[in-house]
């Protein structure tokens, strides 16, 4: 997808004027956070499980080559194929080749962030292959021609009325001429439209929540069952996954799964959990005849051994964005690339370049709530700070901000001079405010006073008064 992270402020401004979006984001804020809390409280070992999940992922990342090769061997033994791809282009080309080999006209797709990352839909369409999203949220935003705004609720920014409008516009050709407003019936309408697509698709593409090294299985979790239909009905199943999704054993998968849905939606488990191991066997009733795993690096191996390695623990639960007050304010599209919210702010600078994504790690109040809820304990604020340091070193970002810090730093390192400046500053601001106790405007910067009064200093600084009292309290 096109990167618009550079316009974060403009994106955010627009988003905050959008009443529909505000209503939708209100639901993210209360719905998901309450659900996670309840699920976590109901499980006494939840915190221990988070540690275990973190440790499993760390172990994998420390031995990534071993587990990936193990995984490949197992997939091959089961009759599947693994395609190793370094770049987005290689991944797209690999997928296209598989589709061409089976002369595919239509492709059904389960939800997959990686295919968003490699902009697969646009690519396939340009090659004359029709991609059809089958996850309800993805289907909605495909109709709207928008990227997802949340990694587990891609259409979370859409209201029911907007969905009514979209379906009314796009479903008339299937005979749905009435404008449907009932949520349940809207779902039914989408289901009926998609049903036909499932059975006629030539290829099914899904992502993977996990790749299991010991069995060569790929695992997807969904709440709609659309993933199962996508991967079992067409003759060819392509799994697109990034390398860090590999997990050693089924036992490990079950551990990590225990924190996934609880962190995401507050469910104990997602409704469907599907393991795919190779193509259909001779005595299987159904399943695909061809099974391919497209394994994408996409810059991830460069993160191994660096400060960013911890980001690769991410299991894409969305808890960080569900709990992030900045996300609640600006929505997912403001971040300007595939991954929104705190994880996007930490990951996107690596993926699209710091210059482009400069705002993302900066637009954080460092409240730390993302780290508090992350099921695999990714220290997101620490990584955001890492990016700020990189940007400062490389002189990326507004010059006045850097100069401001340098001037402030000059005084902060010189206590006597600092004391003099604060003494004068406090007095000036205090007298400017008169008896009001606050200032409506500052002469040099409106960042604060644009929307807030500035509580005025009380008068003399503490240090000044303390010295005058000879170092005694009241």
């Amino acid at each position: 997808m096109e990167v618009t992270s550079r316009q974060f402020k403009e994106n955010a401004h627009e988003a905050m004027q959008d009443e529909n979006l505000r209503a939708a984001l209100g639901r993210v804020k209360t719905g998901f956070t309450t659900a996670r809390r309840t699920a976590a409280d109901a499980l006494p070992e939840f915190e221990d499980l988070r540690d275990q999940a973190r440790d499993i992922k760390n172990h994998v990342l420390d031995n990534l080559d071993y587990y990936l090769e193990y995984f490949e061997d197992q997939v091959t033994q089961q009759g599947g194929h693994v395609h190793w791809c370094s770049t987005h282009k290689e991944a797209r080309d690999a997928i296209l080749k598989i589709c061409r080999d089976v002369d595919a006209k239509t492709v059904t797709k389960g939800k997959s962030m990686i295919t968003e990352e490699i902009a697969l839909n646009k690519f396939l369409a340009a090659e004359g292959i029709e991609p059809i999203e089958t996850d309800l949220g993805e289907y909605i935003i495909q109709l709207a021609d928008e990227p997802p705004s949340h990694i587990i609720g891609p259409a979370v920014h859409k209201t029911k009325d907007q969905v009514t409008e979209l379906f009314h516009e796009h479903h008339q050709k299937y005979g749905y001429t009435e404008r449907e407003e009932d949520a349940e019936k809207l779902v039914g309408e989408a289901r009926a439209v998609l049903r036909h697509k499932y059975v006629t698709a030539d290829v099914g593409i899904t992502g993977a929540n996990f790749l299991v090294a010991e069995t060569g299985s790929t695992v997807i979790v969904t709440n709609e069952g659309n993933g199962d239909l996508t991967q079992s009905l067409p003759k060819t199943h392509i799994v697109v996954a990034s390398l860090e999704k590999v997990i050693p054993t089924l036992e490990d998968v079950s551990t990590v799964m225990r924190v996934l849905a609880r962190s995401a939606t507050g469910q104990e488990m997602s409704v469907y959990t599907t393991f795919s191991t190779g193509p259909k066997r001779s005595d299987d009733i159904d399943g695909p005849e061809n099974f391919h795993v497209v394994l994408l690096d996409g810059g991830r191996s460069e993160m191994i051994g660096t400060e960013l390695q911890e980001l690769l623990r991410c299991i894409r639960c969305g808890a960080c964005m569900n709990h992030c007050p900045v996300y609640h304010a600006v929505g997912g599209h403001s971040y300007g690339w595939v991954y929104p919210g705190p994880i996007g702010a930490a990951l996107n600078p690596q993926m699209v370049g710091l210059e482009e994504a400069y705002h993302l790690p900066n637009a954080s109040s460092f409240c730390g709530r993302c780290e508090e809820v992350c099921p695999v304990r990714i220290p997101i604020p620490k990584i955001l700070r890492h990016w700020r340091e990189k940007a400062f070193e490389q002189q990326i970002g507004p010059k006045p901000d850097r100069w401001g810090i340098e001037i402030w730093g000059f005084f902060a390192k010189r206590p006597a001079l600092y004391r003099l400046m604060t003494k004068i500053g406090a007095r000036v601001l205090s007298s400017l405010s008169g008896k009001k106790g606050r200032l409506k405007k500052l002469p040099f910067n409106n960042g604060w006073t644009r929307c807030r009064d500035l509580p005025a200093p009380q008068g003399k600084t503490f240090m000044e008064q303390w010295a005058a009292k000879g170092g005694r309290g009241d």
Partner: protein
Amino acid sequence: MSNETDKIEVALFVTCLVDINRPSVGFATVKLLEQTGCKVVVPDAQTCCGQPAYNSGDRRTTKQIAADVIKAFKGFRYVVAPSGSCAGMIKKHYPELFADDPDMLLEAEDLAARTHELVSFLADVRKFKVDDVEFEKKVTYHDSCSSLREMKVKDQPRSLLAGVEDLELIEAEDREACCGFGGTFCIKYSEVSEEMVDRKIDNLRATGAEVVTAGDLGCLMNIAGRLYRQGHKMKVLHIAEILADMGDKPGIGEERR
């Protein structure tokens, strides 16, 4: 109380906002510390904990300031700051800053071990019980992010406020959500910050409380500034001011009398 020489010496980290903007919080802090039998010393060489530089990515300046703070507070048994954010900076981030400098790391860890946020120091270390303080108000407490998440301050302010006579504590919805201050964040991303503080204010006002309090002046100045810009009349006080029986003074941003 025992005589002066028996008292435990506490070095006060004033915090730059308290020093410049609201010295009364500093004096409230001194009063509270003295009530628990401490002798308060205010090292003269302090300026700021370095967060503005740290959060702006200027690691070099941050390390210089941190080294100054470490030096200024050397040798005191306790260092106390009336702010979770500044205490958190010293306790959590100074050791990280010097991770690759073994000598400084030892010093940073030593200071970190001696540094406390005021409210938790009063409640957990000094086992302080509020005595003979009256504040007949409905009060709501905002959990500042650093206090809550870096310093684990959650129950302590509530139990201390419970000791204030006639004070009624009313909990706000989403009290653990950030108020949108975030240091330079609120200036650089003013519009996003405004949206955040508006949500915070809606929740605080919905409690019907007359007073909002917290342990960090940054959050309180942000909340007060926006409350007043919107024309609301809640009184905003640092928790130290309430606990030190100084709650009758004009609140943050309030007209002076």
